[in-house]
């Protein structure tokens, strides 16, 4: 059984999805989706333990030997990302039970879970596969289902947001496809390990450089790297709560994983940083993302929009770690993937609670909501502190590692920038907290007097993530260790 884990983790949600279509019963499909998600979570824990013990696991689909058949490869980095994705997905399932019927109507529930499961299996497949073309297939499975998921939002703007994401996402995926095609043209293989070995021999060809450009640009579109992030704010803002949480916690993380996998494992560290000299370029984009998007977030009036722009800024932090090109930098990036997934999912969960009770995400409508929904807003505040990077929270740890990594390279300016940008985060999180706790309700569209605290089934997942934020802010051994091992393994293998 255990030998089949790499494929089972993808297969569970993939099989559950058509079963949902056949079942069509709202509650039944929820149960199915939950079991599949929790099953994947359990498998990802087992996989991580297995990898840490015995090293890289390989699984040949259909028993076809590696360069010819599709191979699933799980190493430290993979297993770590799988854990992050499935953990976030597992936490939101109890939340979905209540939030999905409320936001999408009873009849649409089974379609939602079908799409959600397909999206999950696409993300897991992208992570686990060791075949460049297979990545494209899973990328499109997850993308197509996420376009559909976003379009389920209540506001009609969700449709427009989904359409924009569809156009940009398809361009991104097609760029990726061109890159993979050019690599195949030069090397005659699609297996990542085989590609890495063969690229070394033809690395000076212009075609390889072009392929690098197309692949990085394609992934960059999906990742919402700064100038390519146009689709993200609207998509996150108008998507249903559960979808915002899920995408914010997982989708961009998997894209970042892909970027790392291609930069380090396929093209190799020396090609990326010495030949193409991608480091400074990534650095510039990362800094621009951190500064500009944090500033834009400060001026937003919709909470989910604030968080969406903050997501783009946080992707900047992760890329900053990548641009350093060192083990320390990579460790900080990986750590931030984990911590950011926790805090952003927590924040969006709190938003989901508010939306469930109040029905609005505009700051004006939410003045004084903290007195009506204290637990929800406490959770928001604590996750917000983590986002800012206050000591004793998870956000502090990843920023600490990031600052240390920049200082190790002697980039003083970058270190100062990280600290200053945290102040911007303080401003936009503070704006929400101030409105919720310290402002008097305005007599507007929404009547706050009738608003009660969110139900327990919504609060418990939120608080699980709050405690996770606090726990991993104090107990850093597990997360930092695994991130460090994954970083070492990734850079070590590519030199």
């Amino acid at each position, binding site marked *: 059984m255990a030998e089949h884990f790499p494929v089972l983790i993808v297969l569970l949600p993939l099989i559950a999805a058509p079963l949902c279509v056949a079942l069509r019963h709202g509650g039944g499909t929820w149960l199915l989706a939950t079991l599949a998600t929790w099953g994947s979570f359990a498998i990802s824990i087992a996989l991580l333990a297995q990898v840490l013990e015995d090293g890289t696991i390989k699984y040949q689909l259909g028993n076809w030997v590696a360069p010819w058949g599709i191979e699933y490869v799980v190493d430290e980095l993979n297993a770590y990302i799988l854990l992050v994705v499935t953990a976030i997905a597992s936490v939101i399932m109890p939340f979905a039970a209540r939030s999905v019927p409320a936001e999408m109507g009873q009849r649409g529930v089974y379609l939602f879970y079908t799409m959600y499961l397909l999206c999950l299996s696409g993300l897991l497949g992208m992570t686990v596969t060791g075949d460049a073309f297979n990545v494209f297939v899973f990328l499109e499975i997850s993308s197509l289902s996420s376009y559909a998921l976003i379009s389920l939002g209540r506001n009609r703007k969700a449709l427009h947001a989904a359409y924009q994401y569809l*156009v940009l996402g398809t361009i991104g995926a*097609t760029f990726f496809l061109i890159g993979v095609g050019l690599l195949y043209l030069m090397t005659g293989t699609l297996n990542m390990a085989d590609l890495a070995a063969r690229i070394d021999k033809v690395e000076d060809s212009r075609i390889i450089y072009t392929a690098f450009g197309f692949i990085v640009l394609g992934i960059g579109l999906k990742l919402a790297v700064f100038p390519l992030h146009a689709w993200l704010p609207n998509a996150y803002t108008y998507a249903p709560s559960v979808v915002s949480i899920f995408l914010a916690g997982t989708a961009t993380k998997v894209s970042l994983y892909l970027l790392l996998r291609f930069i380090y494992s396929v093209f190799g560290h020396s090609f990326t940083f010495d030949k193409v000299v991608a480091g400074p370029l990534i650095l510039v984009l990362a800094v621009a993302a951190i500064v500009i998007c944090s500033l834009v977030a400060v001026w937003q009036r919709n909470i989910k929009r604030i968080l969406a722009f903050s997501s783009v800024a946080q992707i900047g932090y992760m890329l900053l770690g990548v641009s350093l090109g060192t083990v320390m930098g990579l460790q900080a990036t990986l750590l931030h993937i984990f911590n950011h997934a926790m805090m952003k999912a927590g924040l969006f969960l709190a938003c989901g609670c508010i939306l469930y009770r109040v029905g609005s995400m505009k700051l004006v409508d939410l003045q004084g909501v903290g007195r009506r929904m204290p637990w929800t807003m406490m959770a928001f505040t604590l996750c917000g502190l983590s986002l800012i990077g206050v000591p004793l929270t998870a956000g502090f740890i990843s920023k600490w590692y990031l600052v240390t990594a920049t200082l190790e390279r002697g980039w003083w300016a970058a270190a100062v920038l990280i600290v200053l940008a945290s102040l911007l985060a303080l401003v936009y999180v503070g704006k929400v907290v101030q409105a919720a706790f310290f402002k008097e309700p305005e007599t507007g569209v929404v009547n706050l007097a009738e608003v009660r605290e969110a139900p327990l089934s919504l609060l418990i997942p939120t608080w699980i993530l709050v405690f996770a934020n606090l726990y991993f802010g104090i107990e850093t051994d597990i997360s930092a260790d695994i991130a460090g091992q994954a970083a070492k393994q990734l850079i070590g293998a590519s030199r």
Partner: protein
Amino acid sequence: MVDLILGLYNYWIVIALMMAGLYIVISRQNLIKKLIGLNIFQTSVFVLYISIGKVFGGTAPILDGTDRIYSNPLPHVLILTAIVVGVATAALGLALVVRIKEEYGTIEEDDINQMDDES
């Protein structure tokens, strides 16, 4: 020079299609036209893949016992998957446009943006 233009003619077709598609996506305001541009753009990649699978003098890879040169079937199979993905994207995109038309009453992007800004 002639070699560059005629010898690599498949790549020129790919580039022309790709640029035409991207240009339509970027420049048109009509959502349906954008989708058409997107499809042309994707088609250019299909042509790229299929043309790199060609082996000169090769035939279809059907085994019949005689020794012959075969074209590489792998890119074709890969692109079959990509075509299916393209169809799915087009269907989903059009479905979204239908819904947008129902909700906004228009499929011109400037009008939609204007309505979005107003509300």
